[in-house]
């Protein structure tokens, strides 16, 4: 077993006991039950739907629970063209999501405005909300979205939420 692995489990010795760090356990739990907020705004949403249906099956990664309420979701998948008319609504829904929360910008439009260099389209959702993973494509295939999701999972596995909290607490004291 690698010394870097934060989760140590040896069934012969330990039976049903796992030794780990709280951060690692939290990260493992968070990254494998990412409930998406499907922000479907254009054709990318069709690919998002395909990703959650049987052939591509986003539930293999624990992200099949599409929540249509921002209060129950962990990751907002912005799938499609964000017009200026819609932009403040997207921001508002993002603000209603509880921490910790992540954002995937799916497709060219959500990442950069795409082919819409015009008066009506926000040039990338990162002008309003922080984006963790950008998925290229117009629209991206479901595999690309799944790859983005796995990258987000990898990113979450590297977070130190408890350590950070402890440091913040000590600083305030």
């Amino acid at each position, binding site marked *: 077993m690698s010394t870097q692995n934060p989760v140590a489990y040896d069934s012969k010795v330990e039976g049903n006991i796992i030794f780990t760090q709280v951060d690692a356990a939290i990260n493992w739990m968070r990254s494998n039950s990412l409930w998406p907020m499907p922000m479907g705004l254009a054709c990318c949403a069709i690919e998002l739907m395909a990703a959650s249906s049987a052939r591509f099956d986003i539930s293999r990664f624990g992200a099949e629970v599409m929540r249509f309420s921002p209060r129950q979701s962990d990751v907002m998948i912005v799938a499609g063209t964000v017009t*200026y*008319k819609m*932009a*403040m609504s997207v921001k508002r829904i993002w603000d209603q999501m509880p921490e910790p929360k992540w954002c995937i910008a799916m497709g060219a439009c959500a990442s950069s*405005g795409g082919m*819409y*260099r*015009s*008066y*009506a*389209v926000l*040039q990338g959702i990162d*002008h309003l909300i922080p984006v963790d993973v950008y998925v290229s494509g117009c629209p991206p295939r479901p595999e690309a979205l799944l790859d983005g999701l796995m990258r987000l999972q990898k990113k979450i596995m590297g977070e130190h939420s408890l350590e950070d909290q402890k440091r913040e607490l000590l600083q305030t004291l």
Partner: protein
Amino acid sequence: MTQSEATLALTTNFGGAILASNDFRSEKTLTVSREALHSICLTARDTLGFDYLVDITSVDHFGDEPRFQICYELYGIEHGVHLRLKISVSEDDAEAPTVSDIWPTADWHEREIFDMMGIRFANHPDLRRILMWDGYPYHPLRKDFPLAGKPSEMPDVAFTNAAPLAGGPFVSLPTDGITQAREPRARSAGDIAPKGQIPLEP
């Protein structure tokens, strides 16, 4: 009812109000005066059987006077004849009579023209913006409105910024030249080759 019968009926009834008549590949266009438009449309629907308004569009001839043109595409489901009516609207008096009392579908078409081109429609039942939000200060389909847009701000409703065009707009040329020549690139109006001339260099 044929196209020529419909045209004849309109010219005999509204002789002075019909300013021009144009035939292009069996598409009939009548340019009519703005004041007579409403009664012409009423006649077209009630006595000539044009019971379907396909579309209303507007054109901005920026720099010309009168500046705007509004086109009405009429169709009769019974007889299958198309007819196009055009009126001219000047910028100083950018107002046209509504036809939404004749064809209810005109309601949203006229709202779109009001939103995008800034032409008002007299007696329209509900003349609000339809695509942009209430309070957006510009009419973005006018020729003097930049493609990139203009910054605007309405707190808690919406904002806009000018889009980075990076030397654009990106235009592809109508050509049967090589792929590189056809590729969309940042071009200005003078770059477009005269008809028949194939640009060799992209």
